[in-house]
């Protein structure tokens, strides 16, 4: 069995708001093994970013985090203090955010920021830190790495900045990288390059990678396992092959029906769509979160919480009252399986 890097069990995030308590993340469980890529996919407001912030303990101050288990490489980080967490962040757990311009400090040079990342966690000389920075900049495909060290973030293009961010994340050789929409701000051509780079580096350094995105195309190409989130819950989880080729939850099926797929969707024909909007997560909510927008919903869907249940294959789970055979038939009818 592969080495487990991160184990999360029943993670919740509640945020007090004017009208009551916003249950942004409602009992999420997942794990990441060594060398594995887990993609968390969902639309805006589904809680995917808060999930990643909760794992890193970087939630906004007023948010309340709860979990049965939160372990990083066997160490309990649920009850770790702030000092221990800042030792972990950037060291064993690296982060890449969406917009590299806002996560790099404009007032310091690239070299300065990269060296600091290493010096904060290891007893190394500036010289050693500098050498590692150059090595990693070359690794992420930046030419003239040495001269880049004296440049400032604004002198680099978006794609280059994201490469610098990735190199900086690798400075301490983390076991786990959490990337929150790392390519959303980039052009399609650059996006492909950055994803290719991430996949290569992950294989080489055998890291666990959690990639958070809304782009199903990205997920399909890079994920080993996929967790589809909707309104604070994971509604379907499985391998990329299972989720994309045999989507079981009506929401996953709806999502796949919504996007034009070159070579599959007929040009100029109307796309599928999911009617309605995401429900409010303020206050208690005991029903299927997707029931209101689901074309297969029936009375029992709104009578209580829906639990995850196994689909046909191993490791494939979904949160719906319909049995796997019915779901499969629905998927085929919609042309998404």
């Amino acid at each position, binding site marked *: 069995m592969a080495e487990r890097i991160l184990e999360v069990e029943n993670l919740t995030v509640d945020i007090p708001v004017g009208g009551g308590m916003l249950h942004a993340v409602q009992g999420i469980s997942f794990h990441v093994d060594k060398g594995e890529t887990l993609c968390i996919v969902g*639309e805006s407001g589904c809680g995917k970013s808060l999930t990643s912030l909760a794992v890193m303990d970087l939630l906004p101050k007023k948010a309340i985090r709860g979990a049965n288990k939160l372990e990083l490489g066997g160490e309990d980080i649920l009850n770790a203090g702030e000092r221990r967490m800042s030792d972990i962040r950037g060291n064993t757990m690296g982060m890449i955010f969406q917009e590299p311009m806002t996560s790099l400090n404009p007032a310091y040079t690239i070299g300065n920021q990269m060296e600091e990342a290493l010096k904060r966690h290891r007893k190394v000389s500036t010289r050693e830190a500098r050498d590692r920075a150059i090595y990693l900049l070359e690794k992420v495909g930046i030419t003239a790495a040495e001269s880049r060290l004296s440049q400032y973030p604004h002198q680099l293009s978006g794609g280059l900045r994201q490469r610098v961010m990735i190199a900086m994340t690798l400075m301490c050789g983390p076991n786990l990288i959490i990337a929150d929409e790392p390519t959303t701000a980039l052009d399609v051509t*650059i996006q492909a*390059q950055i994803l290719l780079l991430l996949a290569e580096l992950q294989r080489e350094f055998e890291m666990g990678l959690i990639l958070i995105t809304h782009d199903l195309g990205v997920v399909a*190409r890079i994920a080993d396992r996929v967790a589809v989130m909707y309104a604070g819950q994971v509604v379907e989880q499985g391998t990329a092959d299972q989720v*994309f080729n045999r989507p079981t939850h009506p929401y996953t099926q709806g*999502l796949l029906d919504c996007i034009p797929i070159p070579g599959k*969707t007929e040009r*100029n024909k109307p796309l599928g*769509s*999911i009617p309605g909007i995401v429900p409010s997560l303020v206050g208690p909510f005991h029903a299927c979160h997707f029931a209101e927008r689901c074309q297969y919903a029936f009375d029992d869907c709104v009578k209580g919480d829906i639990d995850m249940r196994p689909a046909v294959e191993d490791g494939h789970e979904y949160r719906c009252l319909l049995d796997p055979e019915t779901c499969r038939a629905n998927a085929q009818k919609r042309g998404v399986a």
Partner: protein
Amino acid sequence: MSETVISAKDVTRTFMISAGAFKGKKPLHAVNGVSLEVERGEVLALVGESGCGKTTFAKMLLGLLPPTQGTIEFGGKPVADVERLTLAKMVQPIFQDPYSSLNPRKSIGSIITLPLKVQNDPNPATWRRRAEEMMELVGLPPRLFENFPNQLSGGQRQRVAIARALINRPEVVICDEPTSALDVSVQSQILNLLQDLRKELNLTYIVISHNLAVVEHIATRVAVMYLGRIVEQKDTESLFDNPEHPYTKALLESVLTPDPSLDVPDTHLGAAYPNPVDPPSGCTFNPRCARVMDHCSVIEPKKIPSGKGFVQCHLYDENEGRGRAAS
């Protein structure tokens, strides 16, 4: 023979960019000699990476920026001679981000009726009724008339933007990344709506997008831009089924279809988009091109007719490309 609505001839827009405190200004050709014609009822898509000039070109079509050189004609009349109000009646934009394109202090009703007011529409009594009809047409419940943008979801806001653009029944709608700020499930609703409206109101669209899957789905013709030039222009089918320009090929390869059996593609494009102030000589794409030849950095490629469009690349030039490459 269908009717030409817009024709751009050799349009160039140059910005003077300061190169430093004591240096002279340098020209940046954001749009460099673009010629194209748009026919009524067509959906023309402009695609390309950021900084390739697609938005600058759209601004010129809207009359927000005058071209430095060349002419843009609307129904045979040069845009420069058309009164601003008349032009606004013919062409309307829909922008990317419905969160910033709607005035947060105006109600939905006044946002949608503003174009009528601006145009001095003679029947103020009918404004509300017409706005509500338009709201219904774009799938907004008319009860939202008195609401404010912050009470609406992203998809609803984009519908308001569409209603505002269509209230004066323009002929051409310029959609600048109409769905990139929206979620997938909402994106498909808006795309379906745009398609329905086009048929119903006989509209012509110019769609600017970097999402090629969306472009393939809705466009009838596609122009691929690179560094201010159109490098390949064709009807959608032949462009997607048989891309010719190496840049188009690379763009199409970088579209990530949701197929888990495929890996992340390697487009072989170098990392750097060239500095537009100092573009490469010859074919501007040559430093990043996978099939570059010796003379690509020296001679500017000509437009080679191909299908119903053209491709601007030495590979397809019998005299310049293959001949020399073989020798």
